[in-house]
Each structure stands twice: as structure tokens, then as C-alpha cells.
């Protein structure tokens, strides 16, 4: 009896101590952030270290990795398919991102007018962003631009000849760019939120000074919106660099690698040819390119970002 009581007291003591320990502010902080700490180590930092190591090896997932030093990296610069994939990705990013942002800004600006049904319009224009990443839409896109598809039928009715969208190297990118531009909805919503923040008094003052609509847009709206334009530009650029699903389903990277985007090429090396080392090296170069471009966008932003005093 005595023994059991003692044990219980001890248990209580342990529990109490445990409670005291957990209640400490710093301990609670680590407990609550534990998921992130574990996840960051396990799913980001350690894999990145592995990836760095694999990028210096030849690894096919069957045989043990063999160390090859910088070979994978030097090989990349003589790989014509790789160089082409960088080129087509840059073209895709360089065209699709500005087109998308111009659409997003234009529609968001139109919708700043308080009119009946503005939320309905906003929802309508958001729908493509909502579903654009799905396979369902990619399949629809493929059929729309097929040889006998709807887009060609439309071209024929206005007297133009059909275009072999997926057969010509200089045309295959167009459906993919249109698909991306079509999904301007989330950028539009971010712009719309930014436009709402611009005080009406600025426009009223400009109106008294005799400014017209265009002047107001270029002298008031654009400068005040510039931080949000920068944000959208960076986010859209990063995600455009990682474009994968649409190209994988719609063009498969063809014809003749004309739409063989970076992410697609990495995927093929990693999961079709099992060149894990080579693919790892490729993804590091991708990280460097994205970091460099983001850095340049930020660096040059000081020339066009307007800062309120």
C-alpha cells in the first residue's frame, strides 16, 4: 500500500514538473513551432543537402551513387537540349508574365468602378485561375487547339487558314502562353485589393486640377500601385519558371523540344531516365537562375517603385 502511494506521489511530482517545464514560455514556443522545425529539417534542409551531394554524383537509383565532381554541371553547358530548355522557358516567362499582369491590372482597374454586379464579374474572371491548373482544363485546351479544333474553326470563319498549333516549333508555345494569361484571376484580386487602398481624395484633387482619365491612371494609380505590381511580378515569375503540368499534358514538350520547359526536362531526366545526379544539378542551376532574376527585379525596382513620403 505504502509503496503504491509513494509511486503515485512520485508520478504526480513528475507530472507537475513536466507541466512546469512545458509552461515555460520558451518551451511552449518550441513545442508549437516543432512541426515547422522538424518539417524544415526533414523536408527542406536535409533534402537540399542530399540534392547538393547527388548533383556531384552519377546516380540511377539502382547502383550506389558514384562521385563525379563537377561533371554534371560542366555537361549541362554542352547539353543542347538543356540550353534550349532554358531558352524556351525564358521566352515563356518573358511573354506570359507581362501579358498576364497587364490583363489582371486592366480588369482590376475596370472593376474599381462601383457598379452593380462587380463581385459577380470578379468571380467570373477568377474562375480560370481556380481551375486552370487542373488536368481537366489542360485536356480541354489540347482539344481547343487541335488541328480540327475550335480555335482553327474560328480562324476559318474569319477567313484565315488553320494553324497546326502543336506541329510547328514557333507556334506550340502560343497555346501555353494563352493558357497562362487566361489565369490572371489571382493577380487581378491582389491588384483590386491594392486599388481599393488608394484614397479617393487623390483622384478628386487631380480632377479639380483638370487631369483626364489617362493622366490619373499614369500619374496616380500606377505609382501608388507599384509595390503591388512588384509583388505580383516576382510571384508570377517564380511560378512561371516552374510551369510543368500544362506543358506535360498539352504539348509534352514538343515539337522538337519547342516547349520543353525547364521543369519538364528535369522531370524527364529524373523520373524517366533516372539520371538523379544530372537532374539534381539541373535543379540547382534552376534555383540559381530564379534567385538571380528575382534579385535583378528587386534591384531594378528602385527605378520604378514609387515611395510615398
Amino acid at each position: 500500500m505504502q509503496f503504491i502511494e509513494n509511486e503515485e506521489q512520485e508520478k504526480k511530482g513528475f507530472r507537475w514538473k513536466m507541466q512546469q517545464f512545458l509552461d515555460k514560455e520558451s518551451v511552449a514556443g518550441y513545442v508549437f513551432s516543432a512541426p515547422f522545425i522538424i518539417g524544415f529539417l526533414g523536408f527542406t534542409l536535409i533534402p537540399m543537402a542530399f540534392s547538393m551531394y547527388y548533383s556531384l554524383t552519377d546516380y540511377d537509383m539502382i547502383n550506389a551513387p558514384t562521385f563525379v565532381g563537377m561533371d554534371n554541371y560542366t555537361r549541362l553547358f554542352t547539353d543542347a537540349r538543356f540550353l534550349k530548355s532554358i531558352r524556351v522557358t525564358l521566352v515563356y516567362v518573358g511573354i506570359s508574365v507581362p501579358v498576364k499582369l497587364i490583363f489582371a491590372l486592366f480588369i482590376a482597374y475596370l472593376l474599381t468602378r462601383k457598379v452593380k454586379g462587380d463581385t459577380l464579374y470578379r468571380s467570373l474572371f477568377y474562375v480560370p485561375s481556380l481551375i486552370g491548373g487542373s488536368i481537366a482544363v489542360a485536356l480541354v485546351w489540347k482539344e481547343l487547339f487541335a488541328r480540327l479544333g475550335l480555335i482553327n474553326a474560328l480562324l476559318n470563319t474569319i477567313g484565315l487558314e488553320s494553324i497546326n498549333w502543336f506541329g510547328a516549333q514557333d507556334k506550340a508555345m502560343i497555346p501555353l502562353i494563352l493558357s497562362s494569361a487566361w489565369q490572371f484571376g489571382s493577380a487581378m484580386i491582389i491588384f483590386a485589393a491594392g486599388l481599393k487602398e488608394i484614397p479617393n481624395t487623390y483622384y478628386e484633387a487631380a480632377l479639380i486640377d483638370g487631369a483626364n482619365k489617362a493622366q490619373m491612371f499614369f500619374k496616380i494609380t500606377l505609382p501608388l500601385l507599384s509595390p503591388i505590381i512588384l509583388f505580383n511580378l516576382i510571384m508570377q515569375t517564380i511560378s512561371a519558371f516552374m510551369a510543368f503540368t500544362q506543358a506535360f499534358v498539352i504539348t509534352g514538350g514538343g515539337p522538337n523540344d519547342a516547349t520543353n520547359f525547364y521543369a519538364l526536362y528535369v522531370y524527364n531526366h529524373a523520373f524517366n531516365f533516372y539520371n538523379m545526379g544530372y537532374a539534381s544539378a539541373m535543379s540547382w542551376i534552376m534555383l540559381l537562375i530564379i534567385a538571380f532574376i528575382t534579385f535583378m527585379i528587386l534591384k531594378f525596382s528602385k527605378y520604378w517603385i514609387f515611395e510615398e513620403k
Partner: protein
Amino acid sequence: MNKKKIKTFFYHAFLISFGFIMIYPVLWMITGSLRNNAEILSGNMSLIPENWRWENFANGWRGFGGVGFGTFFKNSFVITTVSTIGTVVSSACVAYAFSRIRFFGRNVLFVAMLLTMMLPGQVILIPQYIIYNQLGLVGTRIPLVLPHFFGQAFFIYQMMQFMVSIPRDLDESAYMDGCNKYTIFSKIIFPLLKPSIITTIIIQFYWKWDDFMGPLIYLNKPESYTVSIALKLFADAGSTTDYGAMFAMSTLSLIPVFLIFLFFNKYLIDGISTTGLKG
């Protein structure tokens, strides 16, 4: 006055016609689900099917390889639901730690979180795959749901933005009443986070529902395929593809996303605008 009316008319006319062009592909897909191959492949622009082929749905539902779309939908639901629960709970905990508790290393962790938001997933995809492969988990659903239980930067950030608006007095008065950091979280902060949690659920749900690359890499048996993979394989059947059935299943695959959008539209738009703005 008249001039203004004309202007308003053109304004709405433009928005409606532009909106129509925008959703035309979606409408075309939906009506395509009721057509036969010949009609779909002829570049027919009309949105009204000539002969309403409801059997496309029955044909598509049968799936392929002896596995029906019922299974694919169930798989997608399981993966999406489990991932979403994991994301909500873990992200809320981390957001609470980062915004309400002071501890050594918090700022370093916060910066690390911001960096993971910018990190292209491609870089870690390959080593993760190799690790899962060595653990024998490729082919299971675990690689698709497990990462969601460790907080996701985007949503942590979003919840932190929201927590700023919850007055700290609430924490303090709860503390006076005998709450500790854990009960303050479970009784005060988590319930008040509701709008932010709904936003997280919606966005995570449709991201995961549409996810293609994850299932493409990790799933290798038809019984475990998600809807997105099944649709792709359905379309890959080549010359024998039943386009009507493919569009029927495509349409069905978008219904959950549309339903969520219909009911929680406001939360979705709030979420995008707040995180977008303060980034």
C-alpha cells in the same frame, strides 16, 4: 445623363462579352460531356449538343483497367482531406508560436519560413523522392500527405497576418484566469482564427485536389490513382479515346472545386488579397 447611360451600357457589354470568352472553354467542356466524338472533334462552336449523350457519364465512370472513377474520386478525397486537416492544425500551431510566443531563435525560424515560400519545389523534389524510395514509401499515399503535417509557409504567413488583428488583451485576461500557453491557443486563438482557417481549407483543398505532379511521381497502381492522374491516363488512350466520356469526367472533377468556390468565395478572395498585399 444619356451619355453616362451609354457609357455604362458599353462598360457592362464589354465586361460581359469578355467574361463570356473567358469562361467559354469551361462551358465548352461541360457541353462536350454530352456530345459524341465526331461532334467534339469537328470544331463545333455551338454550346448546345446535337444529341444529348448522358451515357458519357456512365461510360466515363467505368474508368479503365477495371478501376472506376468512384475509386479515383475516393482516393482524391482521402488525400485532399487528410492533407487539409494536417495543414490547418500544424500551420495554426506554428503561426501561434511565431506571432504570440517569445523564444530564442524565433526570428531565424521566421526568416527560414519566408525563404521556403520562395524556394522552387523542384530542388527538393528529387532528393525527397530518393528518401521516400529508400524508406519503401513510393507507391503509397504517405509522401503525398505527410509533408502537410509540418506547417506550410504560405498558410502560416496568412494566419500570422490574421492573428495581428486578435487583441493581445484576450491572451492576457485568459492568462489571469489561469490559462497557459496551450489552453490560450486551444480555447481562444484557434476558435478566433476561424475565418483564416476557412481560407486555408479552401485554398489547400483546391491546390491538393488539382495537384498532378505529386500523384504522378508517387502513385503507381491504378487502385490508388487520384482523379487528376486518372484523367490524364484516360486521355492517353490515343485513337480510342472517348472524348465525350473524358469531358464528362473532367466536368465531374471540377465540381468539388466549384462548389467550394460558390459557398466560400468571400473567404478565398480575402485570403488572396491579404497575403498578397502584405507580402
